[in-house]
């Protein structure tokens, strides 16, 4: 081997993310700085980078890489990196696939989609061949390389392990010689993460954490717009994390009185089941959805409705029954992930509970039939104030408040959009 790959920078310009990777960190304690890959790293998880799809659209993406020559006679070489060679599948697989397509013709379109998004290929495509010059010490500078044939924009949000096979040649038109393999884990997000996440200053605790991206990119894999992304994350938080509602107090575990999100504890819960446990309230759910969705490019805020409103039957997170969690059938307040300015007409995402989506959400406690509806992209209310109570049935509006609250003077009218809690950085609690 005459050439060695020494290091790769994905985020080679921390002041911009239009041609290179975002400013990120691993978690509360570990920063990530370029070069993200150095010789000796062997697993994709060792080398992390994230790209904002909106910002890179239309731009040539570049990385920078550094090399060492082992043969002192080599002063210049052409270097490129390619996809790994395709895996050869046995004949039996193709026969089986043919049978599947005959039985289910739609599989053809699925395969076509896989081909379109470059399934099985590096999300970052290939590194275009570039002339690299070595200095007398035998090392190159960091050399800019353009990427070609990448699938970043086609894949939407995602978590993409990949590997580049590095090759060199001394002259154009001579055969390539392989010399190294580098493995990376690439995250793709819709746009530059929004609050609490920041790009500047860097490094900073509020730079996006890859431990969050790692999960959010899986929860919202392949999504390509903010609404579907927020919906996917809301659904995942509601159904898949083992969280349950605090029917004792309705107290938050993962936010503190200084309005921070105890994200390290929450990640610990996701990893080990411990952390601060699985019992949560609405503030926790709203903050989790906001923080994870905004990490992948949504623009939500945890915002409130208040005060002291009577409830109709709901199905709280982690519960299998329709109920009203507290003895007085009321909530003091409720907090959800909210879009826009957190106004009455702005849609909300609520991972904390399901409402009754049928045409009579106000039956007696535990009495009426219910049609489960997880509030995703649902207007807080479609009714103008003041609301004349009781509302008539059948009630068919896609209106969150009316499906959350009792159809009484102490219910729907008491539940008013109030905006984010003071001190929460406009509903984007800082992470610790």
């Amino acid at each position: 081997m005459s050439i060695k790959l020494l290091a790769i920078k994905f985020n080679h310009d921390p002041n911009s993310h239009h041609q290179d990777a975002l400013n990120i960190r691993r978690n509360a304690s570990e920063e990530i700085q370029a070069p993200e890959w150095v010789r000796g790293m062997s697993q994709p998880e060792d080398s992390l980078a994230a790209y904002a799809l909106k910002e890179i659209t239309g731009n040539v993406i570049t990385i920078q890489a550094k090399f060492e020559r082992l043969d002192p006679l080599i002063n210049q070489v052409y270097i490129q990196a390619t996809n790994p060679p395709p895996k050869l599948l046995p004949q039996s697989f193709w026969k089986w696939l043919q049978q599947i397509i005959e039985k289910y013709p739609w599989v053809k379109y699925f395969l076509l989609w896989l081909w379109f998004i470059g399934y099985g290929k590096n999300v970052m495509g290939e590194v275009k061949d570039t002339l690299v010059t070595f200095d007398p010490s035998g090392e190159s500078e960091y050399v800019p390389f353009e990427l070609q044939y990448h699938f970043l924009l086609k894949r939407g949000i995602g978590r993409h392990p990949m590997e580049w096979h590095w090759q060199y040649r001394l002259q154009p038109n001579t055969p390539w010689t392989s010399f190294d393999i580098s493995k990376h884990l690439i995250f793709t997000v819709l746009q530059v993460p929004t609050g609490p996440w920041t790009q500047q200053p860097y490094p900073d605790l509020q730079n996006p954490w890859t431990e969050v991206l790692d999960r959010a990119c899986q929860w919202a894999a392949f999504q390509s717009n903010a609404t579907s992304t927020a919906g996917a994350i809301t659904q995942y938080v509601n159904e898949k994390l083992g969280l349950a509602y605090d029917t004792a107090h309705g107290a938050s575990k993962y936010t503190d009185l200084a309005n921070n999100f105890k994200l390290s504890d929450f990640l610990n819960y996701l990893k080990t089941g411990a952390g601060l446990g699985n019992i949560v309230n609405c503030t926790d759910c709203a903050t989790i959805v906001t923080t994870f969705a905004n990490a992948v490019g949504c623009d939500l805020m945890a915002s409130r409705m208040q005060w002291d409103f009577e409830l109709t039957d709901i199905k709280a997170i982690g519960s299998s029954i329709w109920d009203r969690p507290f003895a007085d059938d009321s909530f003091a307040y409720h907090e959800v992930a909210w879009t826009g300015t957190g106004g009455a007409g702005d849609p909300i995402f609520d991972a904390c509970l399901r409402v009754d989506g049928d045409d009579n959400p106000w039956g007696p406690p535990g009495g009426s039939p219910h049609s489960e509806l997880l509030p995703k992209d649902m207007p807080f209310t479609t009714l103008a104030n003041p609301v004349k109570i009781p509302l008539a049935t059948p009630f068919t509006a896609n209106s969150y408040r009316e499906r959350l609250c009792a159809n009484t003077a102490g219910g729907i009218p008491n539940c008013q959009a109030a905006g984010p809690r003071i001190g929460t950085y406009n509903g984007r609690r800082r992470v610790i």
Partner: protein
Amino acid sequence: MISQAHSDHRNKVKERYGFAAWGGKTRGPEAGLTRNFLIPWKYLSPFKVERQEVTPVSLREGREVTYIFISPEAPKDERLLIRVWECDGVATAHEALIDVVMTFMATSLPPCSSLDLEIGDVCFGSHGNRQVAMIFARNNLLIDIRSLGLRKLAVSSYAAKLDQLIGGDLRNFLVMEPKDSKPVSFEFQLSSDTAGVDGEIVVKVAAADPGVKDFMVLLLGTGGTFMPRGEDFVFLAKTLGSHLLRIIAVNEEGQVAQQERTIQVA
């Protein structure tokens, strides 16, 4: 800036929690103040401390200590979260209780008296059949204790034990006191042994051994109230007569030292 609506709502919450009946009041004959609160490691045995975090400035500018205690047999399933806020006096602790319950989605909580529990100066339990979470104030401390693990533990016995600790009942320490650990050595000075009604006596407490670890100080006394002032404390004399001031120091290993002084309020 607190809005009028917020202030109105806070008053409504106070009313709902019966604040007028307990706000600023303590139970028992002694006034008490705790500084540098800590739960000795073995105090909730067999539970052991998994985590202890101190936030120097938290609710109402007081210090906050958060503990996670775990059962050695089922560390994931049986866990307790205990948060302690140290306030500058009883009245502040009670306002802080209102601050905390206002972050709860439940509009109100059952008072412990309705659950046949006598804990703290004021105490509230859980909705539901099991007391899996409680919040109470004793003297200048506000304590929130809740079951954290997958197995829902009733926390009332632990709350009662912590209340006993703050109340100065040290029998449990003396039982568990490790024989080979170093006792707390501290000095306790009064600016005077006498004071008039509404007069002040400055109380200074310092470790005699500079190598000693952090220790908790409990100040107990009749005939007046304590309040912190900088690094020291002040006893505000209220009742004529001879009164006993007790200063108790406890370290993390559960070692206890106690000193007493009689003062005259004339």
